[in-house]
């Protein structure tokens, strides 16, 4: 169904100089108003990376501040600087700046980076290709999602200009109702981004249902598609609840409708239920696509059929659905009833199982493969390492007794960075490397990639492992200063220093990535159609793909059967052998 009746540009015959989606039309507007899913994907890719940079800026502010007890860089002098840069004339105190820093860090990273990162950027590019389709079901809606993303981002920048917001990314009422910071713009921003996310999910769901290449059955779909499908389910079911929660928070703040604000007879715990009904499933919106990428990469780069395809596919759906039953595990000490606590704790463990299944399947896939230490493969293994660790620490948090102790300490901070920075961010980078040749038609420098990957692995663990230790010793999160606990927590300062040093190492590595990738655009050698020897459809078209994705109807095969692929010296890529 990739090929149809009308308008194949004549130039698109393989012989002629390939006209691809990058060169098909020119000019900035041809990008901003493109209906091509590939271009939308690329625009998302660039945007989220920049947002990642923004989030990282705040991350480093936080880390540097915490290097040493007492004000480190967030001092009255920096406060003056900030008040000059922002539209808010009031001079902030150091702790006020810190509170804004971690709130903006969290909000930017969550709403502007992790949630859109994989589905909207890589997913947009890959999904239709992997289905052998020409585009997503609703290209206009797809573009609209991107525009919503931009508008939402603008609102966040506005929030920044207004002096930031200091509620924590969780916007807990009643603090978010009474604080004098720019909650409103941040909330509106998140609301708009939410709709962007909903429309992406809607698009993907429909695409998978109606635009699969003829003959492509459900169980021939690549696991990336399965995970994006599962993600879409969550985006559609959970995000609207976030939307209404934010609306209610806003009217509560502006008019006082008395739903969340105890001063008006509202119920603050109700807000937490609303918020986490979205925000727990949201963590699976983040991780599921990451798992999809890893499933692809592990199999392809070990040149080995994925192990337990169906189990992996089913476990994605299982995670998506079970993920809706556990939100209360964020509220064990919030004053929710012990009964609810018990139920949620029990269910929390049930989501751990499908994740476990995936991990085991990935490892089993490598068995007797032919494993190439390409950059994507290294990142995939790093993912298993970090996600495994982060996920397992989720068990401490899921168990009632232990969560009471570590809740809202840096133990939790470490947990979710292992999941989001170590899991999603790493998988994102993994995917970018894996599909870079397809997206840009260039090969990047492998050695650079490998070295950076190792730097990141080390830097990452230095950054967050210490936070487990100080956390379980009782170091609360969202603390501007820890002078008070020096006598209670052994080597606290040392751990904080290690964490900061690691943080810089990590960022150093990450910054290097855009550099050598961009460099490859100029100097990199042209990418063959199928550099890794993958069997999914996106590798059957040219790199980069033509405007309509396929000049030739891609063959439907078992997406993880590589036996018919042979390495071909001349193109330095893989070719099908009958």
């Amino acid at each position: 169904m990739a090929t149809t009746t009308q308008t194949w540009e004549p130039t698109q015959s393989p012989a002629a100089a390939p006209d691809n989606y990058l060169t098909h039309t020119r000019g900035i507007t041809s990008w901003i108003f493109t209906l091509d899913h590939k271009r939308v994907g690329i625009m998302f890719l660039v945007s989220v990376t920049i947002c990642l940079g923004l989030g990282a800026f705040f991350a480093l502010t936080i880390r540097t501040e915490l290097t040493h007890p007492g004000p480190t860089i967030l001092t009255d002098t920096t406060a003056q600087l900030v008040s000059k840069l922002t539209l808010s004339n009031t001079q902030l105190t150091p702790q006020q700046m810190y509170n804004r820093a971690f709130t903006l860090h969290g909000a930017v990273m969550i709403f502007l980076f992790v949630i859109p990162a994989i589905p909207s950027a890589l997913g947009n590019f890959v999904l239709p290709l992997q289905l052998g389709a020409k585009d997503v079901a609703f290209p206009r809606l797809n573009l609209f999602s991107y525009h919503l993303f931009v508008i939402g981002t603008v609102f966040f920048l506005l929030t920044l200009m207004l002096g930031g917001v200091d509620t924590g990314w969780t916007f807990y009422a009643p603090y978010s109702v009474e604080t004098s910071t720019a909650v409103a713009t941040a909330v509106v921003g998140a609301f708009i981004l939410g709709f962007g996310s909903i429309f992406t999910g809607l698009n993907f769901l429909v695409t998978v249902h109606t635009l699969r290449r003829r003959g492509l059955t459900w169980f021939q779909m690549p696991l990336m598609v399965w995970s994006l499908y599962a993600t879409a389910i969550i985006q559609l079911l959970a995000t609207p609840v976030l939307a209404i929660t934010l609306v209610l928070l806003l009217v509560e703040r502006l008019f006082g409708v008395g739903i969340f604000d105890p001063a008006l007879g509202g119920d603050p715990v109700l807000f937490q239920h609303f918020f986490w009904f979205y925000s727990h499933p949201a963590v699976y919106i983040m991780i599921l696509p990451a798992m999809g990428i890893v499933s692809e990469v592990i199999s392809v780069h070990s040149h080995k059929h994925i192990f337990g395809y169906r189990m992996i596919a089913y476990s994605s759906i299982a995670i998506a659905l079970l993920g809706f039953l556990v939100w209360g595990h964020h509220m064990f000490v919030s004053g929710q009833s012990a009964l609810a606590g018990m139920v949620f704790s029990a269910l929390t463990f049930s989501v751990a199982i499908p994740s476990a299944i995936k991990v085991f399947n990935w490892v089993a896939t490598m068995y007797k493969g032919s494993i190439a230490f390409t950059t994507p493969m290294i990142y995939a293994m790093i993912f298993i390492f970090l996600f495994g660790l982060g996920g397992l620490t989720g068990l401490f948090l899921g168990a009632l007794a232990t969560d009471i102790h570590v809740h809202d300490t840096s133990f939790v901070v470490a947990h979710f960075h292992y999941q989001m920075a170590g899991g999603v961010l790493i998988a994102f980078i993994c995917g970018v490397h894996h599909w870079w040749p397809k997206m840009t038609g260039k090969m990047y420098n492998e050695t650079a990639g490998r070295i950076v990957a190792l730097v990141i692995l080390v830097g990452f663990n230095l950054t967050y492992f210490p936070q487990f230790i100080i956390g379980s010793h009782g170091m609360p999160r969202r603390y501007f200063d820890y002078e008070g606990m020096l006598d209670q927590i052994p080597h606290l300062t040392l751990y904080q220093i290690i964490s900061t040093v690691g943080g810089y190492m990590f960022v150093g590595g990450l910054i290097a990535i855009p550099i050598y990738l961009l460099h490859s655009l100029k100097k990199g050698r042209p990418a063959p159609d199928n550099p890794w020897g993958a069997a999914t459809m996106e590798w059957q078209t040219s790199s980069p793909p033509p405007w309509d994705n396929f000049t030739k109807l891609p063959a439907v095969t078992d997406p993880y059967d590589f036996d018919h692929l042979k390495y071909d010296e001349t193109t330095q890529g893989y070719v099908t052998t009958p």
Partner: protein
Amino acid sequence: MSNFLSLMHSIPAAILADGSFWLPPPDSSTAGAVDRVFYLVLIVCAVFFIAVVATMVGFAVMYRRRPGHKSERTATHNTALEITWTVIPCLIVAYIFYAGFSAYMQMQTAPQNSYEILVKARKWDWFFTYPNGHIDSDLHVPVDEPVKLIMSSDDVIHSLFIPAFRVKMDCVPGRYTYAWFRGIKEGTYDLYCTEYCGDSHYDMQANVVVHKSGEFDAWLDNAANFYKDLPPAEAGEVLFTRRCNQCHSNDGSAKTGPTFKGIFGQEHKMRDGSSVKVDENYLRESILDPQAKVRDGYQPVMPTFKGILSDQEIDFLVAYLKSLQ
């Protein structure tokens, strides 16, 4: 399987008595139970993490792509194997849940005869009210006696956290929440606020003092009327350090609020342009109804101390402020 687990579970608490690499010393009656769950999970994690990563690295090395090495076709799935590695984790997590839940139940249900202390959280202070009406900014408890905290908040959500006791509970405005513990070793511990509550969230700390049996009652009525044999100004100073000095200095340095150095007798400009001479009445009013006259150049964030400071205590404070010339 499960008796192997229960073995893990019954790690002798003794070896952990004075804290460890992972946890602070377990100095409440329930802390031991929590720690056992913690170490149970820790071991499960270690085992699985090492197993997974070791296998992964092992495969990566053994089957690395190299000349002459080919990937072999093996089964693309193996039901028996997959069921095993689904069921085993299920059993394990089921056990972890059970362990966590039973320990939690101990932490939930306070003994009947518990000693009750009212906890009021407020940006960014703790107020502990004892049965005899004394309000203290630190939590003092007798050793080896169950203490029940009846908690609430005046403004936003706060959370009371005592690491050494493994106790944590939110203080939610508009309702009560409860927590209990039994300190088993006298000493002084930290108490933190672990729910983000605004600017000085990081500074919303207090001490927990566990008194030797017998000494607690002595402390209590001494605290209730510590000023018995103090001159008013000094009594005021004690109150000042307890309640005011987070926002007011007595040495002229700037804080959230104006300094008290030489405050008495000054003329002060108010927000509404009027100006006031600082006398006893003004001081008294500022303490009981701070928003009535808000000093120019400051935020109206000072909380009232109505119901927290007795008339006598206010007199002491006034006396102290006067003495700061």
